[in-house]
């Protein structure tokens, strides 16, 4: 059975359709890469599935319409990493990560339990934030902030993770670390990921399925190798994608 089933969704900002009649589905344990040029509507798909924008059409999670799932219950099953982050007051990194456990609390008055603390510690450890966990979020670099919010999603411990540019702001070391960590999650723990990425090589290396978008419409959807083909990519990006990638790689041959 499909964990996520999206059929015919359309999102408008004002009179403009940002995405129009997009359908796809995600199997449990798979990693769907949403790819396409700037302005293709990739992030809007993440927003719609995370209940962040109004849409028409139907989104089913585990066979249930997501409109009918309470926010708190939904947050226990679906975690989201957004592209941009807002930071208001000087909470510490640890406090920010602990907010990922909000949906797992029994009531507003109960404090974090032992299980919560273990998940928070694990999330901080795997994202390499141990040294900066008492730092104020106002003092973090872009990469540290990105890892903090990623740790928040990990602490949330969801079945489905929606990632909008997960390795944005991250250097190569953390790009590799995070992508491998995520891959581990899908393989060993049978969790599911939908992510937006710009780097087509990363998409091809880690994804199992792909949704290729252009100008708000779905161009192709299916297993990654059948979608990220030379023909499809050249059409969507309006350039010779493979030649460009090969020329970049050629810099390293001596």
């Amino acid at each position, binding site marked *: 059975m499909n964990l996520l089933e999206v059929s015919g969704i359309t999102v408008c900002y004002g009179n403009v359709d940002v995405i129009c009649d997009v359908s796809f589905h995600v199997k449990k344990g798979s990693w769907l890469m949403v790819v396409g040029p700037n302005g293709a509507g990739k992030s809007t798909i993440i927003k719609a599935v*995370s*209940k*962040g924008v109004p849409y028409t059409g139907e989104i089913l999670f585990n066979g249930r319409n997501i409109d009918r799932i*309470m*926010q*708190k*219950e*939904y*947050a*226990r099953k679906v*975690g*989201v990493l*957004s592209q941009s*982050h*807002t*930071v*208001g*007051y*000087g*909470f510490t990194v640890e*406090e*920010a990560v602990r*907010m*990922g456990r*909000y*949906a797992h*609390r029994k009531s*507003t008055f109960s404090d974090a339990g032992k299980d919560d603390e273990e998940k928070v510690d694990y999330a901080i450890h795997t994202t390499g934030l141990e040294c900066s966990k008492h730092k104020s979020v*106002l003092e973090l670099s872009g990469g540290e902030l990105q890892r903090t*919010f990623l740790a*928040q999603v990990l602490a*949330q411990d969801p079945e489905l993770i929606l990632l909008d540019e997960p390795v944005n702001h991250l250097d190569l070391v953390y790009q590799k670390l995070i992508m491998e960590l995520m891959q581990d999650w899908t393989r060993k723990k049978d969790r599911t990921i939908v992510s937006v990425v710009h780097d087509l090589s990363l998409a091809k290396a880690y994804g199992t399925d792909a949704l290729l978008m252009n100008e708000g419409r779905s161009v192709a959807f299916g297993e990654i190798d059948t979608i990220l083909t030379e023909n499809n990519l050249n059409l969507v990006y309006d350039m010779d994608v493979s030649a460009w990638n090969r020329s970049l790689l050629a810099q390293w041959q001596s």
Partner: protein
Amino acid sequence: MHPAEYAALALITVAVTILCVGAGSVEITPIDAFMAIWNSVFGKTVSVSDESIRSIIVFVRLPRVLAVGIVGAALSLCGGAIQGLLRNPLADGSTLGVSSGASLGAVLALALGITLPDFPLGGTMVMSMIFAFLSLCLILFLSYRIDRSLSTNTMILMGVVFSMFANSSISLIIASVGEKARTITFWTMGSLAGSDYADVLVLALTLIVCGAALRSCTTELNAFAFGEDNARNVGVNVRRTKMTVMIATSVLIGVCVSAGGTIGFVGLVVPHMTRAITGPNHKKSLPFSMFFGAIFLMLCDLVSRVIASPKQIPVGVVTSFIGAVLFIYIFGKSRRMK
């Protein structure tokens, strides 16, 4: 939660209350003031000379000081909650124009003679609350239409414009009502000087109810610090939190304004100082703000009574002098942060 911290705060608050009750045109030592309250509470009979002191303390000063303390606590709580909700360290009932809106409501009630049966102050109170809430909605709606990110500058500008509009409307009403103008003008000057125990009771009950409502939102307010989207993604019911905070703060500001007029900047200054001590966690900063707010406003009220004695200046004048300076300081600091 550290019970010891709260016990210490409560003790300081009580001490300041007694100090404020004692000071005034008739000097009474804190010990005599304390004894007068103690004797009244436990119904002990006292000598004739003590009796005159007792009546000054119990019927004139104590209700006023209590009302001032509760208003200080309420306004600071509101300021802290609104600042959390909007991620804006300069947001407050007075800077956003909510207090002016509430005043407009109360003045309308006075001018049109709106009262509730059996409850003479009810009309101004209810109108204040309704107008406070409508003002908050209008200001947020307009700010949002102009600038979707609800930046500090947009909201403060909107508050300034709205305050000017509300104050002009009040002037217009005063100019056109004829003989009621005296009552209304007197009311707009804003003072808790004539407070009695009925006022104290209404203020206290409102603070308890709205305080409990805001207490139930502290974790959610913490999540708002990382943006509404992030709050929703970790499972916060964003709409419900917003509505709870907006209604609770509007009711509190409405009741405070109808009891004592607009007392500006308390809700701005106190939560800011509190966060510097407690950190940003609302679980701690909101209750601390209440204690600090009560102490702060009682001391401001003391200054307003003593500084030009035997004349009294409105407490709002004192808070505005302090608030104006701190506003510029916080504004400069928050600009540098970006």
